Structure formats: structure tokens, C-alpha cells
């Protein structure tokens, strides 16, 4: 387990310097990157234009993502078949025209029941999962979608190039840092050596010149330490001071025992809260659903992951592309996609056949927030009743690539918050009576959790 020192101003200073440094270097790279991005966008547009003869591929992409992407991918079997060049494929293999596709998309069930041969074949092939009917899509919409499916997807060359470029950049930034620090150390060492040498030389010159050092005189005067030792008052005061100071530091050191603020263990699957809660803005309680009703926030079971990851089988990066820091850390798209595969292995999902194999391997997450058993904490009390944001205690989770313990989770931390936070009593019939009576008693408008009795031992310890 990683320990974080109680007093770490120095490391903070370094961290600050690093941040400042990275801030500048970051913007530099961003500028470098932009032409590449533009180039990628340009190729995409070109591809779209090339592929469309009767529809607008750009509109088609939008429609595809809205309506089809939950079950279909372009180059990959999912709940339904892969749709890249579906029209050509159908025309060549089955001799089916666009009219067939219109009818199928608008009412697939009807076609199956009417006994259409290929409709039934597809239905049987995909585990008899009926395709949702889309009567609202016009023929023109379908044309657009088909145009999109016919367009050749842009090759991910540009992205790879960016990766390589920024990886190099990330490395160089680390090296420069070390070089600067090393140089500084060298300079200091040289200075110290020079001072020493100069002093020596001067002494030798003095001796050679016959200057007598006033050492004898100095001996006759009582040395400073002896004077100090004789002054009992001074000794007393300074020893008291020393004792207090050491007690202060000892106390500080001992109080950090068992506090794991900043604890960020390596997890079996690199799950990025930044990607999920930050980039994709997934509500915390979508996955941690039991936080609403239970004492535990609950680590989501793997079937919750599969709600989305059944169709999200690879990581494509955020819209702006991976940032240089991410790339520096090795958080490439391939890396994330690899992590999704780990999930599939754990849950026993056979990607090829889109089936659960039944061979699952539960994920052993390393628990980060370890409240001792003697303290009772209930998430629902804070999340549902008090309406506190998750971030209040867990910090900026949406920015955390690696989850860490943000708050100290000490009793003092709990109590401070209970002293400062007003109880949310609005629209809660439970509080109506007690709030009226207590606020009158204390003569306040809003009651804190402490005034409500939230500091009593037995509220958390039983």
C-alpha cells in the first residue's frame, strides 16, 4: 500500500513545478498536433464524399449512430450483422435491392412473418433477435444511412502518427526535467567545493605570511556552548522548546498512521473514471446504483458494464484524440481496447459469436476506501437524503484516470463536515416537525447535521 507523508511541502513544490512545466509543454504539443487533426478530418470528409452517390454520408453517420449503432457496427458482427457495404453485399450475394432494405428496416417482423427467405435466414442466424422496426425513417434517411455504410472508413494512419510523435515528446519532457535538476545539483556541489578550497588557500596564505590566528584568545573566552550550558534558564527553555517541537512532529507523524489519502492501487482492469464519468459524462449512480438506497455504493457487477460494452468493444478516444499526457502514460486506444477485452474475459463474453460462454472470472478489485468496521457509514443517507454530490467526498472523480482516495476519511473530517453542512430538509416530511422545533430552540434558520444530533457517538459507532 502506498503511503503518503503527512508533511510533503517539498514534494508539493515539485509537483507544482511539474504542473507548471507541463502546462506550457502541453500547449506547445497541442499546437503541433492540430495540423495532423485537420488532415484526418479532411480525409474523412473526402471519403464520405467519395462513397455517396445518392445520399449524404454525413447525415447518414448521424442517423446511424442514433438508430443503428446499438446493435450494428460497420465492420463487425454485433447483435445484428456488420453493415459496411451492406447494399452491395446484398445485391451481389442475394440479389436483393434497396427496396427490400426499405421494407426490412421499416418492418422486419412483417417480412419474417410473410415468409421472405432471406429475412428468415438472417432472423435465424442472429438468435431470433427481432430487429426493432423503424417506421419513422424515410427512404431518404435510409439512403443517407446506406451512403454512410458504403463509405470506406478512414484509415487510422493519422492517429498512429500522432501517437508516435507525442510519445517522443513525452519522453523528452521527462529527460529535460532530470537534466535541469542534475545540472543544478552539480552547480551546487561545485560551489561548495570552491568555497572549501578558497578557505583552505586563504588559510595557507595567512600562515605563510605569518599572520597569527587568534586561537589562543578565543580559548580564553568561554566558548558559546559552555556559556549556554551554564545558563540554566536558557537550557530549560530550549529543552522545553525542543521537546514541544519534537512532540509536535511526532504527533503529526503518528496521526498519519492508517490514513491512506491519495491511495491509488493498481487495479486488475485499468478502469478510467475520466473516460467514463468525465469524457462520456456517465452519471455516477448509473453504475454505483446502490448508493441511492444502501449503505454501500456498490462496485458495479459486470453485467452493468456489459449494458454498454456489449456494443462498445473498442476505445476510439475522445473527440479531440488522446492527449499527450495520456499517450505519455501509454493510454493509447489500443491500451483501452485491451482493457475492454479483459472485461470480456472476466464476464465470459464471446465476441465472435456475441454470446456468453458461462465461463466467468469475477474481478478482484483492490478496495480503495477502507472505512474501519467500527464506523457505520451509509451512502444513501448522504446521496439520496442529503443530496450531496459524490465529488464532495470522492473529489474530481471525472478527472481521475486512476482512482484514488481523495479525502482523509478521518473522524475529524466527518465531524467538520457535519458541523458545517446544513441538513437538507426541503420537501421531506420526515424533517418537518423536528426542523420546526429545533430551529426555534437554537434560533437559527438552517440546522446543521451536528445540531440535528449528527455528532453523537452512537450515530456511527455501534
Amino acid at each position, binding site marked *: *500500500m502506498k503511503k503518503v507523508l503527512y508533511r510533503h511541502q517539498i514534494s508539493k513544490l515539485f509537483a507544482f513545478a511539474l504542473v507548471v512545466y507541463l502546462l506550457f509543454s502541453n500547449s506547445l504539443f497541442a499546437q503541433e498536433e492540430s495540423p495532423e487533426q485537420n488532415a484526418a478530418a479532411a480525409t474523412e470528409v473526402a471519403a464520405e464524399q467519395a462513397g455517396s452517390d445518392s445520399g449524404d454520408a454525413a447525415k447518414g453517420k448521424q442517423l446511424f449512430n442514433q438508430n443503428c449503432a446499438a446493435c450494428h457496427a460497420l465492420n463487425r458482427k454485433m447483435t445484428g450483422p456488420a453493415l459496411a457495404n451492406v447494399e452491395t453485399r446484398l445485391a451481389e450475394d442475394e440479389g436483393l435491392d434497396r427496396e427490400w432494405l426499405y421494407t426490412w428496416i421499416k418492418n422486419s417482423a412483417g417480412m419474417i412473418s410473410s415468409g421472405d427467405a432471406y429475412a428468415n435466414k438472417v432472423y435465424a442466424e442472429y438468435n431470433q433477435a427481432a430487429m426493432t422496426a423503424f417506421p419513422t425513417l424515410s427512404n431518404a434517411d435510409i439512403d443517407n444511412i446506406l451512403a454512410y455504410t458504403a463509405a470506406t472508413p478512414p484509415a487510422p494512419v493519422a492517429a498512429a502518427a500522432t501517437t508516435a510523435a507525442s510519445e517522443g515528446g513525452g519522453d523528452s519532457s521527462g529527460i529535460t526535467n532530470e537534466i535541469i535538476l542534475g545540472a543544478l545539483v552539480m552547480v551546487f556541489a561545485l560551489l561548495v567545493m570552491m568555497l572549501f578550497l578558497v578557505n583552505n588557500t586563504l588559510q595557507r596564505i595567512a600562515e605563510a605570511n605569518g599572520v597569527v590566528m587568534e586561537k589562543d584568545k578565543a580559548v580564553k573566552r568561554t566558548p558559546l556552548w559552555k556559556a549556554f550550558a551554564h545558563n540554566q534558564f536558557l537550557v530549560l527553555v530550549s529543552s522545553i522548546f525542543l521537546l514541544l517541537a519534537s512532540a509536535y512532529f511526532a504527533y503529526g507523524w503518528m496521526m498519519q498512521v492508517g490514513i*491512506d489519502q491519495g491511495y491509488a492501487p493498481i487495479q486488475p482492469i485499468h478502469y478510467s473514471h475520466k473516460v467514463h464519468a468525465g469524457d462520456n459524462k456517465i452519471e455516477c449512480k448509473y453504475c454505483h446504483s446502490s448508493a441511492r438506497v444502501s449503505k454501500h455504493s456498490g462496485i458495479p457487477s459486470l453485467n452493468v458494464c456489459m449494458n454498454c460494452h456489449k456494443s462498445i468493444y473498442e476505445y476510439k478516444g475522445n473527440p479531440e484524440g488522446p492527449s499527450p499526457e495520456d499517450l505519455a502514460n501509454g493510454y493509447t486506444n489500443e491500451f483501452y481496447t485491451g482493457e475492454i477485452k479483459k472485461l470480456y474475459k472476466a464476464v465470459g463474453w464471446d465476441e465472435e459469436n456475441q454470446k456468453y460462454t458461462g465461463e466467468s*472470472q469475477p474481478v478482484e478489485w*483492490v478496495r480503495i476506501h477502507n472505512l474501519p468496521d467500527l464506523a*457505520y457509514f451509509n451512502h444513501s443517507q448522504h446521496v439520496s437524503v442529503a443530496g450531496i454530490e459524490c465529488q464532495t467526498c470522492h473529489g474530481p472523480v471525472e478527472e481521475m484516470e486512476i482512482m484514488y482516495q481523495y479525502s482523509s476519511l478521518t473522524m475529524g473530517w466527518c465531524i467538520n463536515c457535519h458541523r458545517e453542512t446544513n441538513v437538507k430538509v426541503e420537501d421531506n416530511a420526515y424533517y418537518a416537525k423536528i426542523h420546526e*422545533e429545533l430551529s426555534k*430552540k437554537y434560533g437559527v434558520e438552517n440546522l446543521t447535521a451536528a445540531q440535528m444530533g449528527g455528532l*453523537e457517538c*452512537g450515530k456511527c459507532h*455501534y
Partner: protein
Amino acid sequence: MASKKYWKSEAELNPNDSIVETLRQNEFPEEIPVDEFLGDKENLSASTTNRRDFLKYVGFSTAAASLAACEGPVRKSIPYVIKPEQIIPGIANYYATTIADGYDFASILIKTREGRPIKVENNKDAKTNGNSNARIQASVLSLYDSTRLQGPLANGEPAEWTAIDTSVKNKLEALKGSEKQIVLLTQTYASPSTSKLISEFKEVYGNVNHIAYDAISEDAALTAFEAKFGERALPTYDFEKADIIVSFGADFLADWQGGGYDSGYSKGRIPKKGKMSRHIQFESNMSLTGANADKRIAIKPSEQKKALASLFGKLNNSSVNVDLSENISKAVDDVAAEIRKAGNKAVVVTGLDDVNAQAVTLSINEMLGSIAYSPSVPRYIRQGNSQAVNKLIQDMNSGKVGALIMDGVNPMYTLPNATEFSEGVAKVDLSVTFSTNWNETTEITEFTAAANHFLESWGDAELVKGYYSLIQPTIKELFDTRQFQQSLLQWMGSDLSYYDYIKETWNSGILGDASWNKALHDGVFVLESNTEGGTSATNNRSGNQTMEQQSEANTAIAPISSAVSSLANASADGMELILYPKIGMGDGKQANNPWLQEFPDPISRVSWDNYVTVSRADASSLGLINENVANGGLNGSYAKLTVNGVALENVPVLIQPGQAAGTVGLSFGYGRQVGMKTEMQTGVNAYALYQGFNSIQNVTLEKATGMHEFACIQLHNTLMGRGDIIKETTLEIFNTKDHSEWNHVPQVSLNHQEVPATTVDLWDSFDRSIGHHFNMSIDLNACTGCGACVIACHAENNVPVVGKEEVRKSRDMHWLRIDRYYSSEDTFDQDNTKKDEFSGASQTKSGFEEMEQAAVNPQVAFQPVMCQHCNHAPCETVCPVAATSHSRQGQNHMAYNRCVGTRYCANNCPYKVRRFNWFLLNNNEEFDYHFNNDLGKMVINPDVTVRSRGVIEKCSLCIQMTQKTILDAKREGRVIVDGEFQTACSNACSNGAIVFGDSNDEESQVTELKKDDRMYHLLESVGTKPNVFYQVKVRNTNEA
């Protein structure tokens, strides 16, 4: 003086003694075995490790250990791969099920957390048998018994189910056409599906004989009922409706005829509008029922029979000649007069194992037209047939039995003639025992079929006619086990699951149009004919017919006269032994349950033992003694009991106040040996004396050598006239006088004025009118002392089991105890008077010494005591670290992690409710009960801290439950209504003795009870202002 010589032994006086000389020369009289621990010289010198290296290693390992300790442990969180929809971690689920283990039958709810059953609750929707007792409360721990069988065995060796199935099926097939019977020897199921299944099994294999066997037989009552009504069942009683209850040896508040009668009884015992029921008990042992009676007549069983006959005669106006002593016949006269006065509101019951006695009581109740007695809605929860069991043993020994399949029974332990049985089993071709544990019977049978615990099983039951219950599993089988019914299906060649079988039976027969899912959800289902007041209809019928019946009484009782005369002529020679089940142990099915072993008997307050109860007079004539030794522990003589030549050696003797002279009592359920942890092998096996399935035996008692060490929790048995601990009065005084007379508030002197103690205060009071203020009311009239609350408290609050040795040292950990007090005069009232009349030091001393001794037939009072949650708590002021503090909600908090174990609080507590953890009771090999193995730990309630060594613990008024109720209301944004606040004990108490609630809620029941005239606080004079209060006990003793 100088010549004085000190000598250590006689030998020293002889100067020539060689031994003395050697001892004087040698410092160590024996050779110190240096070589042994240094190994042989060669090895030692060859070793490269010298002393310095050794010290280096020590230093290094110490440093390494302390460095390693700086690292916190890495904790893993493993979520479900696919989470079941109903399970949310941290939230409890409840399932309705039924216990039907052959001895206990009740509809219950099971609380599960993350899929683990952790607690038994009463099913309040159940119209009948919805109340649990101590054993049912504890049954959840038996699920996690580490000695359970983990898979089937063949001849004691682990086997596969498939192998067992094949060999059983082959043998059954072979027996199909033969003369030999296939016998199913089982517990009572009262299960419609099982009955149907067994009859289908009969169809498949032909010569199948099903014998129901109850370890503790109700055969006499069943036979009497069958003779009268043509059905093998037992009548039901509703004691709430009775104004006068007369019992001849029926312990109906415990396990009499299947038990479950206490809640109705208690409701009738709370004085309402100046009325409460009157209860007269004729009995020999001091039973729980007798302890609650208004009038208890301690007589021998033979005299009980005569008294019953004489009562019958008096009620019937016929003359029955009985030779009863004067005071007994006077008592019978009084009872007869009272019954006559009460008319159809009287009820008579008997627990005598005698068909005649049972038949006579049935006739009396019918004659009275008792509205508390309903034979038309009988209960089916005892089916055992003693004759059939005896016949089976004969048949087996004569080689007429081909296969014996047993389920839910342990005849090798419960039969007095177990050796005959085992000889018989040896002659049977195929013997299979279904059992959850390795026991005396599995030892002698070929196949041991590891059976499910009832919490892993499917099933159904018809406890009372027309009242159905379902048994559903609350956890998947923990081990490779299979229940009896499923195996029968398998062996019949059916591939149905027993679940489907039950569903089919219910849908086709029982449910009619009702929904299966609803029945399963509720756990109970009542036929419509019953819901429309089936019982009351019967009662009306009998009520209307009373007059008719009385006029026809002579014809109706014609066949009864012979029964009466045989009762009247009951012989009364020698000492009589009454075998009885304890409320904690029952028939011994759960003898390996540490909660039940540590559960103190409500009457004797002895845990971890059974013993022979003897009256004081008999004890002194036989030279048997009880004494308290230096550490306070209770010791008792050993005795040898002999019944018809069968002797039971070394039975501990307990002198029991209220034991009828000339009788002794001994409880069933103890003395099990096979398959038990050594700690649980307690007591002696009383079944050895249970000859002819009769609980009344003639016995001879001899003193044996040695003294037995009891683990008795209560060492002082009388109140010494301190009437303010248990306040009580009689119904007459209660009705006629002002409450200040019978519920006197103690006075203290303030400014030389006598003022009520409740008005004097050392402290400033905290304003408790805002928010919740929890109060608990304990009604001493409704409390029967059954102890269900004690076990419920254990289960809810993770209270550890400490074992016999520690209990003997008064280190028991019960958060809730039920004190039992005997009066030292005939009544508690006389105690108080006697104490008040002491004058002078010597009289006081001798008087108090006399009062330490309980009376021959004392009054008994029960008082549940837990932390009183004083508003001015003495414990809080003395804690040096503020580990115990008060909340504005009225609960006295205990922060275990803050406690440093000074025990000042325990010393300053006037109620002695604080318990100290002398040892680490979990994860400790020394305490091998359930807290030290992974299986037993599954019963732990995750909402309550498991306490460690060196801290004080005590009742918290189940703060985890009150906090949950508050939180649920907050989340749902609503006001809490009365009844939502509960504690483990108030939930478990189906008698209504413990009522919990918010006294700031004007509507609540507890507020009403707080204003009741009967309300008083324990030790009011101390001024602790507790939040627990009691209701004065009222006895209906007015004779008339």
C-alpha cells in the same frame, strides 16, 4: 531458642537419610535436560550459527516485522459477475418460510443479507403458529454448524449421490415383490405434499409402511382424540378466550402438544377493564407454566390423575371415589366451583401421558362447551405413533423388514431400547438415514444421506386444519446435500423437482383460484372456510350446545366412566420421575447449537446442563446438597437414577423450589455424544429412562459420589423483600385501590421533607421533547419468561458464546437476561411484610438469612433486564474516556473502539447489565463455538460491530434497527408511524410483553403505556431515570 531446629519433612529428622543428603547437595534434584534442547553435541558444534548470528536473526526479524506492520493490508472487493436483481449489497431481504423439523412448527420470516440467512423473525401475517420460540430463533445458527455433513456417506465413507441412488434403487426393486416391508421411519411432517408423495411411493414399491415417530411422544393425547373424533390430531386451544385455565401437568407455555400457545395466554393475562384470566396449575416439576400460574398446587402425577378424576366427578355431579389428602380435595373443590362460575369460559388441559387423562379432559371441555377449545380445527403437528414404532422394532428383529429409510429422527439416541433397535437394523437389507449431522443413528446405518437444513429446503405444512404454510429455501445448499422428499422422487424414477411437485399439489388441490406466488410470498395460506371465522363458528356452536350437552352429559360420558375410575385408582408408590423438555433444548435436535447450550433455563437459570430436579425435603432425606463454592459457582451432588432396572449414573442434582415432594424431574435433549464438538457434549441422556414412551416413571434415587459443577447464571434466587424490584399486586387490590397504594413511588428526603424519588434531581435535565425519544415497556404480566428475546438478541447483536467455564465465572455475555425470583414466604407480599417487621440487628440478620431460602412452593416472577438506558446514567459519569455517552434519542451509546476497559461503568451500573469481553471471543481456538470458523461467522449481522477483547459491551436498544427505520423514512420523505420502531427483543416477543417505540409520538403505544398506572422504573429510588420501564405484575389470586 538457638537449639530450635526447623524441619521440612519427617525424613530430615533422621540424620542418616541419604535422600535428605542428596537433596542438600544438589541444587536441582533432577537432571536438567540440557542435552535435549540443545540437541546432540556433534550437531551443535558442527553448526555454523553462533550466538551472534542468532541475535542478528532476531534483530532482523523484529525489524522486518515492524516494518511490514507499517503497511496496511490490501483489501479486495469482488462484485458479482451478474448480480441477482433482488440483491442489493447492504440491504436485507426477507423470505417467508416455515420451520417444520418434527418438533418445532411455526411460520417465520428469514432475514437474509447478501444471500446469507442471519435472523429469524415472526411471521405476523400468520393466523396460527406465527410465533417463534428460543429454539426457532436459534435454528439459523444450526444452518452454519461446522459439524454438518458435507455430502452423502456409504458405510461412513464419502460417496457419490449417483452411487447411492443406484444401490438404493436396486435394493428397493429387489424388495418390490418380496414379503419384506419397506419402512419409512420419519418425523412428523404435517405436510400435504409429503403425504401425497409417500402414498405415491407406496404405489411404486408396494409393501411400504410409513411410521411417524416423535422423539417426545404425544401418543396418549393423539389416541384419546382419535378415539373421540376419528382423526389422529390434537385439539387447538385459544387461551386468550378463557377466563379460567386449569392445567394438570400441561406445560402449555413451553412445548406441550407442539407449543405456540403462549401468545394467546399472555393476551388474556394483561388486566383490561379490571379483568384478566385466572390460571390454576396442578403439577410436579416447577415448569414455566407453573411459574406463571396464579395458583400452583405441587402434587405427584398420580395425585394429579386422581384430582382430575375428582374434578370430572364434581363437574359432572357424579360421585367419584378418590383418596385425596384434605388440602388437595379442597383445592379441587375450589377449582370446580370456579369452573362452574366461568361456565364455557373455562378450559382444562392436561399433559399427563395417559390416554384416560387426555380423554377425560377432552370430555370436560366438551361438557363445559369451552370457547377456548376447538376440536373441529385440530392441529397436525404431532403424529408419532408409539405402537407402530414398537412393532417396527419387533418386525426388524424378526427379519420382516427389507429396507429402513429414516428422516428427521435419531432413534438410536431417543429410544430407550436403542440396542434392540440397532440389532434390528443389522437384520435389515437396506438402511438409509437422512440427517444433517453425523449422529448415533447414522453410525449404524449403511447409507447416510446428507440432508438439507430446513432453510435450504422446499416444503409445505398444514399445521392446523385448513391453515397451510410453505417452506422455501433462503439459501442454496451449502454442501452436497439433498432433502428426503427429493430423494424419494428420485428413487421413484421421477425427474420432477420437489418444488414442482409441491406447486402441482398446491395448484391442483389446495389453492383453488388463489395465486401460488402470493402464497409463497406470504408463506401462509388459509382456506376461505377458515378465514370467515371458522374457529369462532365452532365456538358458537359449542357455546350454543352447552346446555344441551350438559343435559346429555350422562350419555356422552358413559364410555368415559371407566377412564375416570382408572384415573381415580392410580397407584402412588415410591418416587415418581417426570421427564420433560426444556424450552431451550427441546428434544435435543439442536444440541450442537451453542446459543441454545448457553441459553439459561428460565426456571433453574442453569446453562450447559441438564440435571435431576429434587425437592428440598427429598434432598435432605437423601443427603443431596447444593452449595455455592468460593468463586460463587454452584455445585451439586451426583445421584444415580434407576427406572425398571435401567440406571443413569452421575446425574447432577439441582434442588428445585416448588418441586412436589416425592417427585423428581429430568429433561430430555442432553447427553448427545456422537458427531458433537466436545464442548457441546453436556448433560445426561434422559431418553434412556423414557420407557414405553411415558414421561412419568417410577424411579429410585441414590446419592452418588462427587460434586457436579453447574454453570448457573443466577446465584441469588430470592428478592429478600425488596418489593420495588418486582412490584406486584393482586387483581382485587388493583381494581379497588388507587395506584399510589400498589405502585408506590419510593420517597427520599429533600430539605427534611419526604418527597417522591422521581422528583429529586442532582442534574440539569436535557430537553428531550424534540425528535425521537425511545422508550421500552416490559409488561411483567405478559412475560412468560420463555426466552425467545434472549436468543433474538444474540442473533441480532453478534453476542458471543463464552462456554460453560466462563459462564460459571459469571462472565456470560447475554445483553438481555431474564431474572427469575422465588418468594421466600408463600407470596412475595409476605416477603415484604416480613422484612418490614424486622426489629433489632439479630432479628434482621437471622430473618434475612431465612429469606435467602426460597419457599417450598414459592411464587415465581420473571423480569427481563437489559440496559435501562438511564437518562441520568451512572455509567456515563465514570467513564474516563467518554466511551459511553447519552444520545438525545434516549439511547445510551457505547463506542467500543473508544473503550479502554477500565470497567468502572460496569461497577457503577445499578442494574448489572454491562458485559466485559475478557477474551477475544472470535477467531479464538479456545472458544470453539461458532465465532471461530468461517461457516459459523456467516451468521454475523454485518450492521453490528463484532467486539474484541478488553471492551465493555451492552444492549444498545438495537440502535442499528432504529437508525435504519429513521433513514428509510428520511429517504422516502415521510413521517414514521408507531410500530415501525422495533428492537430484536420486541420483534421476537409474540406475547406483547416488550413494547418499543417513540415516547414523543403521542399516538404511540409506548406513550400510552408510559402513562399507565402500572408503570414503574427499576430501582426508582436511585434516580437514574431509565428509558426502560416495567408494568406492575398483577396476580389473579382472589379466591372465590
